């Protein structure tokens, strides 16, 4: 009908794309916060409140049950570091399962992609678990039930690794669930069974050597051990392999991104 004004070939420039990316993530974050927490009572504070309640509950249970941990670590600190680590990978993956289905109408907007929807939920979950960990630690350190962390940098690095693991798992579970509902059905029992194996309720050192090598195959066990080494220092003996955990995260991330791309191509309304 008429000659093209602009020749749109090749890739658009990076900077404007980052602008769009930020706008979309911001819009999705606000949308998630409003529908999940509403505007009543605590509102967005529930983001940290929910995981805090979980962690407090578990800490109380473990204290009441007098969980044998045979080391010098106060049980509250043991529970807070352990359960917070679980929240990092479990909540991200749990929330990712329904992410695509719940946000499908928003994919009508060209710039809103499945990857954005999954990243948004993961950011929120990691943000919530992180604030819960920080707030609880500060409170318990303040009242003297928990020692302050020995090596802050190592704690942060271990936390980053757990976040990476959670995010890569979320991408994989989220995209795979969009393919087939079976994935979500299988993930929930898997997460339930993985919890006792995840290193939250034990130190690898307490296990027989054969078992140690087996549980260390689970990436999050390495992360939790590292976190505890950073937090408690030499008081505890820890076993972990950062290289192994990073390799697992890398494979999961690439697999997740690949699946996200595949599933984005076949979005149907």
């Amino acid at each position: 009908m008429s000659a093209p004004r602009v020749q749109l070939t090749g890739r658009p420039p990076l900077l404007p794309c980052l602008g769009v990316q930020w706008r979309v993530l911001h819009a999705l974050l606000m949308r998630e916060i409003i529908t999940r927490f509403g505007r009543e009572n605590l509102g967005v504070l529930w983001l940290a409140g929910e995981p805090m309640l979980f962690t407090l509950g578990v800490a109380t249970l473990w204290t009441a049950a007098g969980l044998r941990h045979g080391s010098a670590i106060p049980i509250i600190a043991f529970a807070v570091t352990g359960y917070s680590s679980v929240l990092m990978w479990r909540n991200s993956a749990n929330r990712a399962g329904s992410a695509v289905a719940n946000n499908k109408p928003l994919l009508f907007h060209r710039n809103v992609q499945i990857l954005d929807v999954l990243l948004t939920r993961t950011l929120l979950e990691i943000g919530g678990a992180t604030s819960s960990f920080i707030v609880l630690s500060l409170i318990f350190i303040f009242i003297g039930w928990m020692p302050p962390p020995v090596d802050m940098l190592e704690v942060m690095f271990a936390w980053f690794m757990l976040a990476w693991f959670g995010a890569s798992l979320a991408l994989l579970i989220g995209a795979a669930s969009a393919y087939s509902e079976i994935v979500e059905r299988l993930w929930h029992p898997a997460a339930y069974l993985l919890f006792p194996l995840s290193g939250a309720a034990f130190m690898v050192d307490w296990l027989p050597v054969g078992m140690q090598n087996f549980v260390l195959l689970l990436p999050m066990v390495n992360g939790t051990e590292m976190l505890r080494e950073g937090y408690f220092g030499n008081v505890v003996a820890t076993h972990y392999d950062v290289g192994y955990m990073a390799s697992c995260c890398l494979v999961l991330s690439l697999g997740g991104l690949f699946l996200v791309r595949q599933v984005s191509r076949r979005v149907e309304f």
Partner: protein
Amino acid sequence: MLAIQHVSKVYMTRHGPREVLRDISFRLGRGENLGILGRNGAGKSTLIRLISGAERPTSGRIVRGMRVSWPLAFGGAFQTHLTGLDNLKFVCRVYGVDYKPLVPFVEEFTELGIYFREPVLHYSNGMLTRLAFALSMAIEFDCFLIDEAMVVGDVRFHERCHVELFHKRKDRAFILVTHDANVIKLYCKNACVLHEGRLLPFPSVDAAYDFYQATMSTQAEPIEV
């Protein structure tokens, strides 16, 4: 300029792959408009979703050299647990527009009253359509994709859409798909018929209209034009 180049779309069904759209090509310049007629299930909404970028074609290319709206259909594009206002905010954030100056226009146009601040899931079809229309008018697009949205709604709504789209924005392009030939006749300068997966061009809206009416009444094979 919007260019649709050899676009095909295949959906997987229980009975194997089904080609809904077959090798569709056309161009639309700024300010031009196109009406696409098709019966129920002809693939009109699919084509609109492909053009908007919400879905991707199985093969072929879509080049958007102007700002193309999302499909203006009733239902789609809303998060139903959000209120009308929240949906406005969402859309504005995604498209990088300040929502505050737009609230009066959207409130006035949609006539939702207190429902503007209620979750969209409590809306009727008419309310959804008004909101969808108002939101896409709130964002300045060069090309609007309208999927049947003009067909639902009452006379008053039609008149207001007419004013907003065809008077205030008559410099914009639009693609209107519908099964209602009269709507196309009323608004479009060019018309095509989507028939058996192919987009058949016609020299005039009347010719498209006649062909469409003929396929509606008889099960006639398409005439090559």
